[in-house]
C-alpha cells in the first residue's frame, strides 16, 4: 500500500473533500446522466456532499474491501435510498450506477498527483479505490434489481385480483370467466369470490368459462371439480363452458370424469342452458321480421 504499508485513500478523501466534490459534480454532468427536471442542481450537490462525507467516515476504519461490514452501514443506507428514489423517477440502472462510478476519475486524479513519483504505490492505491467503487456501484444495481422484482411481484398480485371477475349475467345467473394459469393461489381467490357472490346474489346457476385457460391438467380439473362441488352444496348449479376440442380430447385421455358436470363448448350455449334452467325462454318476436 502506501509508504507505511497502509492505504492513504482515507486521508486523501478527508484532505481534498471540497475539490473532490467539485470534480465529481463536473464528472457526473459529463457522464451524461439523465438529469432534466428530476434532480435539481442543489439537490444533487447536497446528495454528493453527504455521500462523500459518509464515504470518508467509513474509510477511516481502514476497511476498504468489505462494504457489508458494520462501519459501511450508513453508506449502504444512503445508496439504498438514492437507488430507490431514482428507480421511482425512472432512471436506468446505468444512470444509477454512474453516480458511484463517476467518482473514479476525480479520486484517481488525486491519487495520481499524490503518488506521481511512486508507481508501485499508485498502482496499489488505484486498485483499492477501483475495487471499492466497483462494489459500491454494483450494490446500486442489486438494489435496482430488487426494486424491480418487488414491483413485478406487486403487479402479479394486482393481476390476480383483476383477472378473476365474477359477472352477473342475468337475474340468478353468474358467469366466471377464467383467464390464464390456474395456479393454486389464484384458484383459492376465484373460489372464494365466486362463493361469496353466490351468497350475495342468491344465484341459481353459475357458468365457469375456461376459454382463456390454455392448459387443463389434473390440478386444474381438480380445482374445477371442487368449485362445482362447493357451489352445489349451496344449492347452485354449475356449467363449464369454453371446452375447446383439443381440451376435450386431453381431458378424456387424462381420464378426468366430468360426466357429473354440464359442459358446453361456447359461453353462449351455456347461457341458454342457464336461462332455461332458471325458467326463462328466449324467442325471436314474430311479425317484425
Amino acid at each position, binding site marked *: 500500500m502506501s509508504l507505511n504499508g497502509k492505504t492513504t485513500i482515507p486521508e486523501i478523501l478527508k484532505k481534498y473533500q471540497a475539490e473532490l466534490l467539485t470534480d465529481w459534480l463536473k464528472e457526473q454532468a459529463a457522464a451524461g446522466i439523465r438529469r432534466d427536471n428530476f434532480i435539481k442542481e442543489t439537490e444533487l450537490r447536497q446528495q454528493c456532499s453527504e455521500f462523500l462525507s459518509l464515504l470518508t467516515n467509513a474509510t477511516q476504519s481502514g476497511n476498504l474491501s468489505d462494504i457489508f461490514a458494520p462501519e459501511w452501514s450508513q453508506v449502504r443506507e444512503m445508496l439504498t435510498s438514492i437507488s430507490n428514489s431514482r428507480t421511482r423517477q425512472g432512471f436506468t440502472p446505468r444512470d444509477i450506477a454512474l453516480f458511484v462510478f463517476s467518482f473514479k476519475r476525480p479520486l484517481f486524479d488525486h491519487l495520481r498527483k499524490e503518488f506521481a513519483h511512486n508507481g508501485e504505490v499508485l498502482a496499489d492505491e488505484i486498485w483499492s479505490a477501483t475495487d471499492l467503487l466497483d462494489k459500491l456501484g454494483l450494490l446500486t444495481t442489486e438494489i435496482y434489481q430488487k426494486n424491480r422484482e418487488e414491483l413485478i411481484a406487486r403487479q402479479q398480485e394486482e393481476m390476480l385480483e383483476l383477472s378473476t371477475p365474477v359477472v352477473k349475467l342475468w337475474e340468478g345467473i353468474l358467469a366466471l370467466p377464467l383467464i390464464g*394459469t390456474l*395456479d*393454486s393461489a389464484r384458484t383459492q381467490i376465484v373460489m372464494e369470490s365466486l362463493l361469496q357472490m353466490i351468497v350475495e346474489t342468491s344465484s341459481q346457476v353459475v357458468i365457469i368459462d375456461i376459454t382463456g385457460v*390454455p*392448459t*387443463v*391438467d*389434473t*390440478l386444474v*380439473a*381438480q380445482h374445477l371439480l371442487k368449485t362445482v362441488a362447493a357451489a352445489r352444496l349451496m344449492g347452485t348449479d354449475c356449467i363449464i363452458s369454453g371446452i375447446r*376440442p*383439443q*381440451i376435450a*380430447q*386431453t381431458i378424456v*385421455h*387424462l*381420464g*378426468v370424469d366430468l360426466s357429473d358436470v354440464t359442459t358446453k363448448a361456447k359461453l353462449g350455449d351455456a347461457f341458454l342452458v342457464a336461462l332455461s334452467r332458471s325458467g326463462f325462454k328466449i324467442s325471436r318476436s314474430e311479425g317484425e321480421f
Partner: protein
Amino acid sequence: MAVQKDEVMSVTSSADIVLVRQIVRKWSVELGFSLIDQTKIVTAASELARNMVDYGGGGKLRLEALSEGIRRGLRLTFEDTGPGIPDIDLALKDGYTTGNGLGLGLSGSKRLMNEFEIYSRVGEGTRIAITKWR
C-alpha cells in the same frame, strides 16, 4: 435416431411449471405438431413437472427435438433425485395418489404420449421420458 436440438431446465417451483408449459408449447409449435398434439404434450409435461416438484423435491427437464428418417419427434425427460416410487405399477393406476390429487397424472400422461419410459429407485430418484412423434 438423431437429436437435433436439446435444452435442459431446472424445475423446482410452481413458477417453473408455468415456464415448462410455455417452453414445451414453443418447442411443439416449432416442430410442427397439430394444436391437439401440442395440447397433449403440454398437458403431459405439466403433470410430470408438477409430480417432480410435489413428490421428487424438484428436478430437471431435458427437451430433445428428434428426427428419425422423415419422422420428427419431441422427447421430454424428467429427472429428480427424490425418494423414488416404491411400486410403479401401483403409481400408474388411475386414481392412485399419495398426495391429495386425482391420481391421474402419471397414467394420464402415458395415454397422452406415444412413448413412456419410467425408471425409479427408492432413495435414488425417478426418471421419466415421454416422446411424441409426428
